[in-house]
């Protein structure tokens, strides 16, 4: 583990710990839309809730989505990639084309079209159960890992029969590489989950029961309170810190040292 990875892991862990703590410990509410003060360091929300609690809950929800997306992408992509490596001929060719096709299609509009199918539009927001959002993001994101693993475990072909390589031999030789690729893909999946879910929030997609950092933003904008900067900028700042932590972990894992 290098310094960049450690720094990223520290940022992510501290974010997780603080958001978990303040989503349990309820701080005293105040009058609605109070700006930041000594009593309310991050101000209060439309309903008077302490913005520390609101931000913590939103960050925790974003983190849940990130971890779930990362895990599902690995759960689908890893065995699929193995299967690609194991198969030969036309079956292999066909199996390779599926993640290729998923990777080719522009992800943003596809995710929105799928969200529209599963969600219920309410004129100001598209209420989509969080589980569907997780599945949509994972479904459109597992292709890369499958392709990479498929390439790693596909036995090399040589002109000389004495160098013939079996799938098992190739798999054994590539274990370290598979582990590293899977870790990077899991972290990339987390980045994907967090950023795509919050971006979908900007376009009005979200689960009212699981507000994210951008759901706060959308709700605020629709209530005509754009002047209340603490409702918008502070969640954006937390989103940025959280993503920086994840990006650093990915960057650290990619380095060889």
């Amino acid at each position, binding site marked *: 583990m290098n310094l960049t990875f450690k720094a990223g892991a520290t940022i992510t862990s501290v974010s997780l710990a603080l958001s978990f703590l303040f989503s349990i410990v309820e701080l005293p509410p105040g009058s609605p839309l109070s700006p930041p003060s000594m009593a309310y360091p991050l101000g209060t929300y439309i309903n008077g809730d302490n913005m520390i609690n609101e931000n913590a809950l939103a960050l925790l929800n974003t983190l849940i989505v990130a971890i779930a997306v990362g895990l599902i992408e690995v759960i689908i992509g890893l065995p699929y990639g193995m299967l690609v490596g194991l198969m030969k001929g036309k079956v292999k060719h066909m199996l390779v084309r599926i993640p290729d096709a998923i990777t*080719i299609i*522009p992800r943003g*509009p596809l995710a*929105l*079209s799928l969200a529209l*199918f599963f969600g219920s539009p309410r004129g*100001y927001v598209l209420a989509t159960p969080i589980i569907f959002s997780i599945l949509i993001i994972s479904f459109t994101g597992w292709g890369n890992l499958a392709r990479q693993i498929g390439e790693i475990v596909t036995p090399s072909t040589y002109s000389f029969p004495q160098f013939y390589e079996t799938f098992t031999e190739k798999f054994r030789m590539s274990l370290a590489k598979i582990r590293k690729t899977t870790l990077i893909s899991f972290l990339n999946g987390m980045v994907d989950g967090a950023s795509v879910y919050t971006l979908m929030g900007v376009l009005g997609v979200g689960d009212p029961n699981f507000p994210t950092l951008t759901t706060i933003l959308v709700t605020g904008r629709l209530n005509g309170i754009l002047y209340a*900067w603490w409702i918008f900028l502070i969640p*954006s700042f937390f989103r940025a810190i959280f993503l920086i932590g994840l990006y650093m972990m990915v960057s650290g894992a990619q380095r060889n040292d």
Partner: protein
Amino acid sequence: MNPYILAAISLAFLFSGILFSYVSVISEPYKDVNYGYGNCALPPSDWQYRYWSVLAHGLPHPVLFVDGERENPSQIAPVKLNSTSFYVYSIEGYVQPYAYLSVYAMFSVFFGTLLGLKTLLYLAQYKAIGDLAESKSPSGSLSLYVVKRITNLVLVIVITVSVILVLEVLHGDNVLNSLFRMFTFNGGISSHYSVSVDTLLLTSLGYTSLLLGISMPFSVFAGSAIAMRNLSTPSTLFREWKYVGSSLASWVIGLSLIYAFHYGIPLFPSGGVGSPLFMYLVLPVTSLVIPTIGITANRMYDVVSKFRSTENVKHEIKGLSSEILLYRHVFGRIGVVLLNSISSIFSEFLLSDFFTEVTFAVPGIGFLSWEAVVHGDYLVLEGIFLLYTVIIAVSNLISDLVYGLFDPRVRVRR
């Protein structure tokens, strides 16, 4: 090719792209009229297919005169009359008569940026090493390369159309009707706006291409210039900018700018578009440029560093001067790689632009997506999906072709 001619062509494409984008968003009052004699007043046929400027000026409204008396129907639909009368039924609103130019404008901006980037590298090479900048490589078959790239484009569009067909069937549409609409380039009628999806897409695409036309070339050229300058003195801040640039999305910067220059110091208007248009575009363009300039510079720098380290080894073996090494060999190789990565930069830019439009309520494709999502207008969203795919796929094809033209090594060997 002479870099100065290349620069002139690039500028011509960029300026025409921005100009055509601007022309495509110009709106004017329009009246679509039908008249007749009977007991039912009918609105003009095909009124839904005019280029109504719905997002910028609102929906068109009906005006009905029956025997010289004005009536105000609540919605645009046939009106049953009390007796057989002479009527004039008009639909009044604003149209963007040149909305169709937005399609050309979008690709012109992309092509201009692509050529501009090549020009920038060429100019730097020529300035340093003169005619040695010309590259000569064994040539492959350009026609086979083109066929291969076009096949890729067709494949992407076929996959997207198939996904859309599946979604439409799941929404309860007839598969043959959907297929017929797609083959006739008819996106259907928007359930929320009651005008054609094609109208909505074309009228909003102009604003998107205008925003992109101003911000993308600036970010790409400035990013490349920063990356080239950093070759001699790399800075940590520059290297780590990717974290800040990727996490502080354009819409976050957009919000900060709104607080600073709209609420704080009221210098610029925000929220929709108005007159003068330029003032309404300053903040969205700035918010698009700030994060992307760093990301673009970083991506360029990564490519340059990668090639530089491998070329350094050859330099030591061959004993080449560092100038020849950098400007002929390193720049020669990164030029083609950068041309290829410009399409992914374009794709990222387009997505960032979507969110910036939503933040500033600029009536482009991104804002239209938001409207379609929250109102459940699936035909509009599928239209955006298809349009986005076609734009990205065609821009990929353009960059691949230019890539193949400049670098014979990537062409298919017979």
